[in-house]
């Protein structure tokens, strides 16, 4: 268990630091509440509102297609690093992997996911 001592110390220090900030801010800080300040998050957005207007489904399609290529990259980078060591087998496997992904991409393309009317 001794190797966990460092982690425990970190947790305790972090807790003390955060606790100190909260206590200091609530005791020393000036308090001038206003309706805007009392809202959650206070980021300029109205926190609770009914959804208005339409959001085009096309944005989601594009986002999903983006994930397709994102996953591809996540796999391609480590493969490129060890490309020489993996050799022909690695290349074949990667081509199959890309082929499967491209089937999905082709499906989306074929069904008009890339057409922006």
């Amino acid at each position, binding site marked *: 268990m001794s190797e966990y001592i460092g982690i425990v110390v970190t947790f305790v220090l972090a807790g003390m630091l955060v606790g100190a900030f909260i206590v200091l801010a609530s005791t020393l800080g000036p308090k001038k509440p206003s309706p805007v300040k009392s809202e959650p998050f206070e980021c300029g957005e109205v926190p609770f509102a009914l959804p208005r207007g339409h959001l085009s489904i096309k944005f989601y399609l594009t986002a999903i297609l983006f994930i397709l290529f994102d996953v591809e990259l996540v796999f391609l980078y480590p493969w490129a690093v060890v490309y020489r060591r993996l050799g022909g087998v690695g290349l074949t496997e990667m081509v199959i992997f890309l082929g*499967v992904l491209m*089937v*999905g991409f*082709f*499906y989306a393309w*074929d*069904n008009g996911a890339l057409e922006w009317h």
Partner: protein
Amino acid sequence: MTDLILIVPELVLVGAALALILIARHVERAPSAATWVVVAAVAAMGFGWAFSSEGSQIGFRGTIAGDGYAQFFKTLFAATLALAALLSVRHLDAERVPPAEYYALLLLASAGMMLAASAADLLILYLGLELMTLCSYVLVGITRDRAISNEAAVKYFLLGSFASALLLAGISLAYGVTGATGFAAIASAVSDRSLGQHPVLLVGVALVAVGLAFKIAAVPFHAWAPDAYQGAIAPVAAFLAAGSKAAGLAALGRVCLVAFAPEQRVWSDILVGLSALSMAIGSLIAVSQTNMKRLLAYSSIAHAGYALLGLISGTPEGAAATMTYAFIYAFMTLGAFGIVIGLGQRGENLVGYHGLARTAPWTAALMFLFLLSLTGIPPTAGFAAKFGVILSAVRAGYVVLAVLAVVCSVVSAFFYLRVAVLMYMTEPEGAAPGRLPAAVTTALAVAAVVTILGGIFPDTFAAWTVPP
């Protein structure tokens, strides 16, 4: 390369699914796609059997097993896939579901089940189950314009992801204690370093068992099943009841009997609780159902409990009893759902079965056969299967549980045979149902043959039920 022989059935199914996705836009009618899926399923089964004697029993660095246990379940999943494909034809054209996408998902889900059954490593097991459930979520909600389907899919997705998270947490705890994810490695690490009583490992075993209990819809992790079955189109419900339950049982069997074999005391206590609750609550709630799909959903929950009876003992004979149970249950539930599908909209409610024996005697007779089998009355296969699991529970000393199983069977006779009473002893209402579609008739015939054969010759499947 020789490792690839172990996953030939999966490769066939995935290849068939990719081909369907490629030509998706040009597939307009369901029957052609269904034929393609049936061919793929039969090919997967055939190749699986043809290559079963070749190569080693385990491959991919000990992560995928190709033993008789995997073989048995792969055959079961291929058969389930073929029957579900046949049963879907009529629904897809009626509901305007795109056939290619639907069948591709069905194929991929089956490939996931097969992978889960042959997994010899917790991560491969997770991968297979996840492929199965991700496809199932979409299949449940594939009728997009029906609000009830959307609701069912979202509920199934939320509870299913929660279950997956629990399973992963269990896997990570087991890995943390033993330093391995391979089943054999975990078992040897536990016995070599006497980690049997390590509290973290006990929690890990419990979490894995709970995660898999979600997949087989055992009480108290059953809440998704009735809603998902009711919201999904009937063929998808049939596929889930037969396939995903068997996949969960296959995974549970191998994990308990191989990976966590030294922890038997822990998981068999958990399974006893799950089994007792599933049998009792599934049977009791089914009594008050008037929707046929919900009734079959609660019946599937109760059957999860019966199937677990075999695993509790932890013996090879018990595991073989559970395997037989999963196999026979798949066919009899596919048969019962097949009648629901064949009757169309009127099959969904109990009212639709009034006087069916008068207007459609053959359909009623087949339904009666499947209901007898689900109840567990001889000479149907359901009796042989139930006898096997109850016997194994008695041999392992769980007499009270066995008595509970028998009592629950009696309770279940009430709601199964109520449908039979409605069919045979009430006056017909409305018009006679039309003829069953040819595809549905074919599927029903296969299911009926297995149900009768398994009852008259109870040892039919004994040679193939190889415990892990």
